[in-house]
């Protein structure tokens, strides 16, 4: 990747961070917990995005960021009163800005109407009538490029009190070709200086330049010598220096300026080019530049001599200054004001003294204020591939370590021998390394929670409801992959909560609830997993309606006896959708069954609880990482398999009396009064033709996707173990009943079972076996 592409990537990463900071800051202000620094940080976030976008020529982004920034600046300076309404506007603007960033990165078309409307609202907030009619006359008419008002650029003083001139260089209209972008990605603004400066171009042999530095020039670390050198690059020059005002050594102010230069420069360059050299010191010197028609001394050697002399002199002056400066710098300020008949030079020094002396004080105060502000945490940015490689290697290390441990045990080495003890230490270290490496991938759920606040705003707007999102535990850390795959399910749950859960404001008031609904998102660590709750304070699940729909769609039979919890659970059933008509919001043909499936794909679970009139709570429980898994190691027909622990409810030894046949082939096991299908894993996976005797087996009770239970028959349980997940899909594609594989301590490869697939598959498998048998019998 070339440098510029890498920087562009950095830019978009940074944009994401800035956007998060922006939203975070705005929400803090909304909660009335913000201070001046919060507003500053919010302003800086937008300002930074604008700055970077400018460098990459992302015009639409620059324009909107500028308008946004102007309004934020109004808030910062107190011109705009901070009200809840303004904050809402800012939050929606942040959403638009975020969209524009995304479009700049991924391509696609911006919602022009929305951007235009937002821009207009922002301008109104600034007290500016949106003025597309801002006449072209307002712009310098004589400029050689097409100039039109920047759409929506608010003419409000920026942080420096500067009112931006609304110029927009529109290359697309003006020039048929795309502006050339150089290797740094800069699209230069084409201004024809020759045309602008036609008079200069007409032209002269060179210029006579009079240059008299003021003390301020030196105080800003500028240097006459360097400027003359730069000037020397433009052509031959003859330099004379009038140092008649240089006082006697005793009276020299080391910070003074005493030289008066006259330079005759022979050059093809323009006056503008000459003035550009002095651009930085324009106000710190007297400068005259006059075209030189004739009279240039055609004596190169002579000129060179003069220049050399002068340069030597300047160098000497500079040295003298340097020699004196350190001594003079501080003590000079303590020159006794009462000194009799002060030297003429003393006056400027005394004047300068308070200013300079005060200077360090101000930053010190700033620094003190800054000390309370959070320092940027020390971080490094590492390519994710490297982290994954490290995780992989640590996985290998864990496997290797357990293999070694097993070999040592098998070799009959005493438990307390040095080898065994050393091995124990190794095991501890390996575990620690593994945890630490996993922690690298862990990230706080904050960004995803922040994204949800946007979803809440949008859905609330769409449905005309008033909803507030309250988040807790944003610092809870989860594996990056888990976080990434959480966005869709959470979005869907939030949409559901607002669309179906929260009532309309008038209904809420009628029920004696606060007009504004509340959605809470809470993340917390609980026993090695992350639990995320999405709770609303809406109407709760309408069980009668859910039941009716389920009956109508054939999900349950009309006479089914269901508990409240079972009815609530129906909304996860495939093909269930409570909306009588599919609304724009939570519709889209996706139901809660998809949410459940994607959570389960992450090794997580979702459950629901609802209280009529008080709201509904969804609870997600997720593993902290996808790289390792807690599993139960079992054997089936001589094969070693791993059953994910998260699916296991209990294990038991079936009794003859509990086993019941059901039809020709199917068997069920009676556990505490309910009948649970019994599945022989060996038969389903094709390890054996004839099903094993349940009484000789162990039944592992698992809970599946739709939270129905099944008992998996295995031959024996070896133990519980944390295993490193190795994907097989790259080499084998998707294999039925197999989720992944792992390497056990003895070096054997064990398959990790895809429990849901096996349960679902067993039904069709039974049907197939039945059919075969019938065919054979016939």
């Amino acid at each position, binding site marked *: 990747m070339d440098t510029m592409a890498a920087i562009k990537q950095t830019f978009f990463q*940074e944009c994401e961070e800035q956007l998060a900071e922006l939203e975070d800051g705005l929400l803090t202000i909304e909660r009335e917990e913000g201070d001046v620094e919060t507003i500053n940080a919010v302003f800086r976030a937008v300002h930074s995005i604008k700055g970077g976008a400018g*460098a990459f*020529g992302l015009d639409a982004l620059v324009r909107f960021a500028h308008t946004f920034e102007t309004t934020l600046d109004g808030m910062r300076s107190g011109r705009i009163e901070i009200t809840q309404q303004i904050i809402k506007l800012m939050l929606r603007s942040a959403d638009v800005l975020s969209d524009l960033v995304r479009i700049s990165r991924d391509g696609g078309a911006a919602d022009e109407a929305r951007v235009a409307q937002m821009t207009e609202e922002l301008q109104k907030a600034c007290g500016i009538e949106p003025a597309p009619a801002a006449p072209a006359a307002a712009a310098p008419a004589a400029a050689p490029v097409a100039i039109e008002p920047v759409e929506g650029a608010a003419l409000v003083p920026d942080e420096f009190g500067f009112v931006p001139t609304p110029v927009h260089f529109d290359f697309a209209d003006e020039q048929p070709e795309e502006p050339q972008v150089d290797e740094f990605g800069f699209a230069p603004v084409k201004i024809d200086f020759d045309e602008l400066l036609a008079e200069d171009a007409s032209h002269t042999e060179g210029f006579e330049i009079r240059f008299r530095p003021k003390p301020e020039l030196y105080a800003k670390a*500028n240097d006459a010598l360097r400027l003359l050198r730069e000037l020397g690059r433009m052509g031959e020059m003859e330099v004379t220096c009038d140092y008649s005002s240089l006082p006697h050594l005793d009276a020299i102010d080391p910070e003074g300026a005493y030289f008066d230069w006259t330079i005759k420069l022979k050059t093809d360059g323009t006056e503008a080019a000459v003035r550009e050299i002095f651009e930085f010191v324009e106000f*710190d010197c007297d400068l005259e530049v006059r075209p030189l028609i004739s009279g240039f001394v055609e004596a190169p050697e002579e000129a060179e001599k003069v220049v050399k002399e002068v340069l030597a002199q300047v160098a000497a002056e500079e040295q003298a200054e340097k020699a004196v400066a350190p001594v003079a710098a*501080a003590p000079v300020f303590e020159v006794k004001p009462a000194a009799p008949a002060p030297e003429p030079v003393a006056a400027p020094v005394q004047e300068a003294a308070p200013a300079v002396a005060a200077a360090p004080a101000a*930053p010190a105060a700033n620094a003190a204020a*800054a000390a309370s502000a959070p320092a940027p945490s020390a971080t490094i940015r590492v390519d994710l591939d490297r982290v994954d490689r490290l995780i992989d290697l640590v996985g290998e290390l864990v496997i290797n370590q357990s293999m070694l441990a097993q070999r040592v045990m098998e070799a009959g080495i005493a438990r307390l021998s040095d080898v065994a003890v050393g091995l124990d230490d190794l095991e501890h270290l390996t575990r620690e390394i593994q945890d630490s490496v996993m922690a690298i991938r862990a990230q706080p759920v904050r960004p995803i929670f922040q994204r949800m606040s946007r979803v809440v705003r949008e859905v609330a707007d769409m449905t005309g409801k008033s909803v507030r999102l309250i988040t807790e535990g944003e610092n809870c850390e989860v594996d990056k992959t888990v976080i990434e795959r959480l966005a869709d399910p959470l979005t869907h749950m939030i949409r559901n909560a607002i669309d179906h859960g929260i009532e309309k404001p008038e209904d809420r008031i009628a029920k004696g609830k606060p007009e504004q609904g509340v959605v809470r998102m809470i993340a917390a660590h609980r026993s090695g997993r992350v639990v995320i709750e999405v709770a609303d304070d809406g109407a709760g699940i309408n069980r009668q309606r859910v039941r009716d729909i389920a009956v109508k769609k054939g999900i349950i039979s009309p006479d089914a006896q269901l508990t409240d919890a079972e009815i609530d659970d129906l909304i996860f059933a495939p093909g269930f959708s409570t909306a009588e008509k599919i609304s724009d919001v939570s519709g889209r043909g996706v139901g809660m069954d998809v949410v459940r499936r994607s959570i389960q794909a992450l090794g997580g679970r979702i459950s629901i609880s609802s209280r009529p009139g008080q709201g509904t709570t969804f609870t997600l429980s997720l593993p902290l990482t996808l790289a390792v898994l807690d599993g139960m190691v079992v054997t089936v027909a001589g094969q070693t398999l791993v059953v994910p622990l998260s699916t296991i409810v209990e294990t038991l030894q079936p009794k003859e009396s509990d086993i019941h046949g059901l039809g020709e082939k199917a068997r069920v096991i009676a556990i505490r009064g309910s009948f649970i299908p019994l599945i022989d894993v060996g038969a389903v996976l094709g390890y054996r033709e004839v099903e094993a005797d349940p009484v000789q087996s162990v039944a592992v009770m698992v809970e599946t996707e739709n939270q129905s239970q099944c008992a998996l028959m295995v031959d024996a349980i070896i133990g519980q173990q944390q295993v490193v997940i190795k994907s097989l899909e790259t080499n084998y594609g998707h294999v039925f009943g197999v989720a992944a594989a792992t390497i056990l301590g003895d070096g054997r490869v064990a398959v990790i079972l895809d429990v849901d697939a096996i349960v679902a598959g067993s039904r069709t498998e039974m049907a197939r076996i039945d059919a075969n048998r019938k065919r054979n019998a016939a």
Partner: protein
Amino acid sequence: MPKTILTVDDSRTIREMLKAALIDAGMEVVQAEDGIHGLEVLETCAPDVIITDINMPRLDGFGFIEAVRGSEKHRAIPILVLTTESTDDKKDRARRAGASGWIIKPFDPVKLVSAINRVAA
């Protein structure tokens, strides 16, 4: 000897851009994330030129320039300010704070190097 440039900017993007352009021009680059950080870095290195942003957390560009100009050790280091708009007001503000010159964002690498040459031999 190559020039060492200290860049002070809270935006990683801008820092990286400056770095790419400066290294391309054969200079060495030291980076800082804000004014306070810039002052800390100055304790450990002596850059030939400082390029600083204005809007930064903790200590902004103006405060940073004032602190550098108020420090005996560093006051002679030329400072260029990065600014978004090329307006007289902005330049004036930078000048009053003690900046040696300015660079207008988005910057052109050639102009950047030329600006550095004008303030540092």
